[in-house]
């Protein structure tokens, strides 16, 4: 049974998706989604244990040896992402039980869970595959399901955001396909390991350069690297809460992993970072993203939109670590992938609670939150401190790691940019604290009624019904993630060893 785990990682959520469609009850669909999430987490844990010592598991699909067949590859570089996906999926399952009921019309809930299962299928599929074209197929599965899920947001702008994401996301996917095609044209293979074997023979080939550039640009769109980030703020802020949590915590991270996989193990450090100035380009766009993301976040009037812009800055930070192409840089990037997922998961989950309690996520409606909902507000503040990078939060641990990696590589300018972006983070987190703690709340009942009116006026059937109580199933995940964001700051041994293992595989020239 254990030898089948790589395939099960993808197949279980897929079968559950089909099951959700067959079932007649919304509760049953939720149950199936929970089963899929839990099973994926357990599978991911089991796989992590198997590759803990640096082993690589190869699984031949259909019994055909690669490169004729498609193989799945599990190593330390992707179990991190698998674990993260599994944890976020379980959290989404717990959180979604109440939140989806309140945000999505009843008759759509079964299909909603089916789409969530498919999103998981796609994300897991991208992460485990060892075949370049197969990666494209699963990328499109995850993208298609996220377009549909984002479009279900309560306001009509969700539709526009989903459409814009669809267009730009498809262009990105097609760019990836072009890149894979160019690499295929000069090697004749799609298998990542086989590509890595054959590419050195055609080094310096202009088609290989083209392949690297197109794959990089295509994935950069999916990663929302500045200046290709335009789709992200709308998509993250308008999607239903659960979808926001999953996309913000792991959506872009999977694309970052895919890029690292292509850059380090398929094309190799020599081609991507030494022969081509891709590394420098990443450092430039990463720095710009840190400044622009954090800077624009300071001027947002909506909590979720603020968080989305902050994500653009944080993605910039992660890709900067990758762009350094050193073991410590990649390790810092992985560490920040983990920590940022935890922090942003907590914040978007808190935003979902606000939506249900206040009927809106505008900063204005958060006035006086500290006194009215101290626990939620406390979680927001703790996670916010992590975004700034205040010790002893997880954000500090990963920023420290990235700073050391930058110093090691003598990148002082980027270090200054990073510090500046942390200052900007202090500004936007400060605004939330200011509104929530120091500003007096307007009369609650009146404001709530007004917000609901606006939502109704938006002519969307998914009007949020305001609740007086926060369900434990929603508060629990927020608390758990907030606590984890502090815990990973104090005792970073688990995330660090995972990140170090990943960096070893990627930069050590290990087999893809």
């Amino acid at each position, binding site marked *: 049974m254990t030898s089948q785990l790589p395939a099960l990682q993808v197949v279980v959520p897929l079968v559950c998706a089909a099951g959700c469609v067959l079932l007649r009850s919304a509760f049953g669909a939720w149950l199936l989604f929970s089963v899929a999430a839990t099973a994926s987490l357990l599978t991911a844990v089991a796989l992590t244990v198997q590759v803990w010592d640096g082993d690589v598991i190869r699984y031949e699909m259909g019994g055909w040896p690669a490169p004729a067949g498609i193989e799945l590859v599990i190593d330390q570089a992707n179990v991190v992402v698998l674990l993260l996906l599994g944890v976020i999926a379980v959290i989404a399952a717990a959180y979604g039980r109440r939140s989806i009921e309140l945000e999505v019309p009843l008759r759509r809930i079964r299909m909603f869970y089916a789409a969530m299962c498919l999103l998981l299928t796609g994300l897991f599929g991208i992460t485990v595959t060892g075949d370049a*074209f197969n990666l*494209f*197929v699963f990328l*499109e599965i995850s993208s*298609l399901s996220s*377009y*549909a899920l984002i*479009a279900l947001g309560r306001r*009509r*702008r969700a*539709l*526009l955001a*989903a*459409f*814009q994401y*669809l*267009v730009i996301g*498809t*262009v990105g*996917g*097609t760019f990836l*396909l*072009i890149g894979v*095609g160019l690499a*295929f*044209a000069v090697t004749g293979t*799609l298998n990542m390991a086989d590509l890595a074997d054959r590419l050195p023979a055609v080094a310096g080939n202009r088609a290989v350069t083209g392949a690297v550039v197109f794959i990089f640009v295509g994935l950069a769109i999916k990663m929302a690297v500045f200046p290709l980030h335009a789709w992200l703020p709308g998509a993250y802020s308008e999607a239903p809460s659960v979808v926001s949590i999953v996309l913000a915590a792991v959506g872009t991270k999977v694309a970052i992993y895919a890029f690292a996989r292509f850059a380090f193990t398929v094309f190799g450090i020599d081609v991507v970072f030494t022969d081509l100035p891709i590394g420098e380009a990443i450092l430039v766009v990463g720095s710009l993203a840190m400044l622009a993301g954090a800077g624009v976040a300071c001027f947002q009037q909506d909590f979720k939109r603020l968080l989305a812009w902050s994500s653009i800055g944080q993605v910039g930070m992660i890709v900067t670590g990758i762009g350094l192409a050193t073991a410590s840089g990649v390790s810092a990037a992985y560490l920040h992938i983990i920590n940022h997922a935890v922090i942003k998961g907590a914040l978007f989950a808190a935003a979902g609670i606000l939506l249900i309690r206040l009927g809106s996520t505008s900063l204005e409606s958060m006035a006086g939150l500290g006194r009215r909902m101290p626990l939620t507000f406390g979680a927001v503040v703790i996670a916010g401190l992590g975004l700034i990078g205040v010790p002893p939060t997880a954000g500090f641990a990963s920023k420290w790691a990235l700073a050391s990696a930058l110093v090691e590589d003598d990148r002082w300018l980027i270090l200054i940019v990073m510090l500046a972006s942390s200052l900007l983070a202090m500004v936007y987190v400060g605004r939330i604290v200011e509104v929530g703690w120091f500003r007096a709340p307007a009369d609650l009942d009146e404001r709530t009624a007004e917000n609901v009116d*606006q939502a109704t006026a938006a*002519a*969307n059937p998914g009007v949020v019904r305001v609740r007086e109580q926060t369900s434990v199933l929603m508060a629990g995940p927020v608390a758990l993630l907030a606590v984890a964001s502090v815990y990973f700051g104090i005792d970073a041994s688990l995330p660090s060893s995972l990140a170090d293992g990943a960096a070893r595989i990627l930069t050590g020239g290990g087999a893809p």
Partner: protein
Amino acid sequence: MIATHYTYWIIFALMMIGLYAVMSHGNLVKKLIGLNIFQVAVFMFFISLGRVDGGSPPIITEGIEVYSHPLPHVLILTAIVVGVATTSVGVAIAIRIYEAYGTVEEDNALARDAAEEGTQ
């Protein structure tokens, strides 16, 4: 060079027309049509990689020795399906946008959202 590569260049020109249509047009349906052209051009690129001079379709028949490579064909079969799936979801979202905004022009819809924000 020209004799062996002109196919690629015309295909790239088609990609350019498609990409331009996607980005320059504000009409959502037109964007999807442009996206189709762009993707189909990429499909042609893949198929052209599989061709061999004097080859036959890769259906094994007695007496035929040279076949075109089946792998690009397989990939593009999958990619065509991905393309039509994207189109269908895009069309569904475009219809919903029309119902919510009364327009399928991106600029008008954005303007209506901005106006709504202004009145609040």
